[in-house]
């Protein structure tokens, strides 16, 4: 009988093939009392040898999988340093000598101690280093327990090609290695959809599903399965009908991808001919390649805060300008929507990173910060005004809450234009301007904003978390964080209406738009423009091609009458299945 496992989609794509389970430390660490100094002597030597072996393993991975330019090389160097000359090892050795305990026990005590100390630190960056400590310690522990390295780290060539890899959790390094070994897809039992490894899998185009509870218990290595990264489901022991269907899907996907590559920018049209504009959300200038590959109608959201990360000084006007110019050139006439840097004070270069506020989501950040300290936005604004002479560029303001903010921003805008005017620099006076609708206050008053602007962009992720007062990264609140809560449908509907009355476009950028099941709802609510991660576009185009506008409008009307997100979900699922 076919068995179905449900998880959360990280990266769409279909894979059929044998499972490979990544082995984990199965041995439990036991306490063992040493009897004499001779045993202490040999136990310390055993730990030292295990550390040497761990170092050799890491060195081998570095040589085999990382070229010098690789960012991961830095991570590996850290791991090497943690083992080479550090208290982690020295303190464990001392613990063996002082308390006559075994090496495994000493290492575990030291690891837990370090994790405890990291957990209470104020600096979110240092707290994030607990993964490094865990990974390094687990490696030594595994060697002490005489277990071999996981197979993907071993030397023989491509043993994992075309396999579907199943692990409790993947580290960033695991994902790189597995991708280079030709793995077909990844399945994990745990891991957030915004985690570092999820982002990496998406960038590498590896189909991936997470939150598959106890999958290692249900699936065996070598077992043939189907993984559907789009639906977030795994089918074990599939019957011949399912196999036929998925093989066909995969063939067509390949065909569609090749065709998509030949016809980038093919319009997304519903069955009755309504044109839907599909745009891309990007964070880095390099993402522009996938904008073209997946045929997006330009960029609906460029998150410029990444320009500020990991550096000593904020980028100056010319650096901003160069990046925007290059992007516009590579977009070849497609629109570029630049969102002003959405930063928190501690993320700015030259600020104390320890000064992170208690609740950053609700604090002095983003546009609020930029209005408070106009010199933060000034160089970026001037660069945007200059770049707007080169191609279709739109300016997007994040986190607007009230009209005064918009008025104050317009002053900054005029100042920037004045400076450029005085310096005789070529610039555009009237850049198309819009705001993100992500604070419920702005959604409710969308009509007031729409009168003054050229477009509205609904940021559904933040709008959801602010409306429902639930952090979307908090797993414990996933029952409260409901993107399809009736309140959100009403807010989206209201914003769309306000935009329509002001004769400006409103579009939605957020994960909601990338869900094929939600498309009839969004189209039915009146939206004609959506902006998503580029890799979602082919699936959306396919789903849109099956929609009738009339039916979608009826579906949206029915959805607006429901009382709970569950009912709305069910309604959408039924509609998608029919």
């Amino acid at each position, binding site marked *: 009988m076919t068995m179905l496992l449900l998880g959360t989609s990280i990266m769409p794509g279909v894979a059929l093939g044998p499972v490979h389970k990544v082995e984990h430390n199965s041995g439990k660490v036991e306490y063992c009392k040493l009897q004499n100094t001779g045993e202490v002597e040999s136990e310390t030597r055993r730990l030292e040898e295990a550390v040497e072996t761990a170092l050799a393993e890491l060195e081998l991975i570095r040589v085999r999988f990382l070229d010098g330019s690789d960012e991961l090389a830095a991570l590996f160097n850290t791991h090497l340093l943690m083992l080479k*000359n550090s208290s982690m090892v020295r303190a464990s050795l001392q613990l063996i000598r002082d308390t006559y305990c075994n090496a495994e026990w000493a290492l575990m005590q030291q690891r837990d101690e370090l994790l405890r100390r990291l957990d209470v*630190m104020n600096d979110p960056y240092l707290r994030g280093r607990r993964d490094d400590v865990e990974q390094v310690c687990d490696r030594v522990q595994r060697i002490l327990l005489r277990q071999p390295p996981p197979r993907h780290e071993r030397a023989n060539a491509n043993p994992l090609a075309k396999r579907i890899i199943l692990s409790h959790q993947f580290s960033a390094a695991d994902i790189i290695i597995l991708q280079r070994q030709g793995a077909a897809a990844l399945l994990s039992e745990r891991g957030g959809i915004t985690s570092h490894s999820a982002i990496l899998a998406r960038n590498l185009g590896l189909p991936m599903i997470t939150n598959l509870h106890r999958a290692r218990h249900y699936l065996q290595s070598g077992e043939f399965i189907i993984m559907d990264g789009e639906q977030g489901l795994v089918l074990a022991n599939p019957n011949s009908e399912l196999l036929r269907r998925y093989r066909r899907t995969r063939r067509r996907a390949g065909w569609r991808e090749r065709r998509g590559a030949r016809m980038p920018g093919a319009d997304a049209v519903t069955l009755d001919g309504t044109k839907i504009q599909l745009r891309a959300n990007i964070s880095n200038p390099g993402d522009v390649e996938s904008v073209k590959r997946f045929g997006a109608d330009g960029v609906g959201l460029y998150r410029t805060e990444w320009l500020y990360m990991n550096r000593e000084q904020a980028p100056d006007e010319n650096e901003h300008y160069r990046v925007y110019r290059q992007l516009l050139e590579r977009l070849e006439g497609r629109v570029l929507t630049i969102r002003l840097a959405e930063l928190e004070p501690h993320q700015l270069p030259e600020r104390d990173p320890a000064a992170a506020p208690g609740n950053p989501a609700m604090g002095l950040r983003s546009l609020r910060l930029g209005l408070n300290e106009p010199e933060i936005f000034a160089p970026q604004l001037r660069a945007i005004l200059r770049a707007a002479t080169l191609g279709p560029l739109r300016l997007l303001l994040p986190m607007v809450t009230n009209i005064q903010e918009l008025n104050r921003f317009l002053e900054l805008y005029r100042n920037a234009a004045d400076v450029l005017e005085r310096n005789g620099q070529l610039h555009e006076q009237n850049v198309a301007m819009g705001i993100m609708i992500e604070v419920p206050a702005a959604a409710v008053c969308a009509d007031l904003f729409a009168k003054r602007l050229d477009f509205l962009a609904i940021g559904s992720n933040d709008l959801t978390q602010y409306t429902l007062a639930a952090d979307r990264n908090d797993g414990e609140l996933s029952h409260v964080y409901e993107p399809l809560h009736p309140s959100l449908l009403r807010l989206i509907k209201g914003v769309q209406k306000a935009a329509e009355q002001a004769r400006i476009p409103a579009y939605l950028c957020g994960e909601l738009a990338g869900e094929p099941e939600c498309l009839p709802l969004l189209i039915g609510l009146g939206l004609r423009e959506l902006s998503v991660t580029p890799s979602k576009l082919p699936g959306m185009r396919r789903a849109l091609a099956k929609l009738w506008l009339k039916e979608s409008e009826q579906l949206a009307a029915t959805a607006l009458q429901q009382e709970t997100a569950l009912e709305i979900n069910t309604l959408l699922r039924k509609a998608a299945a029919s």
Partner: protein
Amino acid sequence: MNPALERRCLLRNRLGLHVRTAGLLAHTASRFQSRIRVAHNGREVDAEDIMELLMLAAGRGSTLHLHAAGPDAEQALESLEELISTRFGEQP
């Protein structure tokens, strides 16, 4: 007897002592024979130990006290001060 020397340095790079900078500091310290200690906020650790350096949680704007004792203490402190004052080579 070699002299024990002391110096204060202000961390001016973006993240303070984080993984990369702590690594550089430990690596630099390991090139000298002298015993080098780093103190911050009343805690003193071995300068060659990346884990302990991280545990100092010395953010941007913190002052580090460097102590060195040994035959090349002077050169060691010179090198470390140079490293810290040039913001660990972080690009502006």
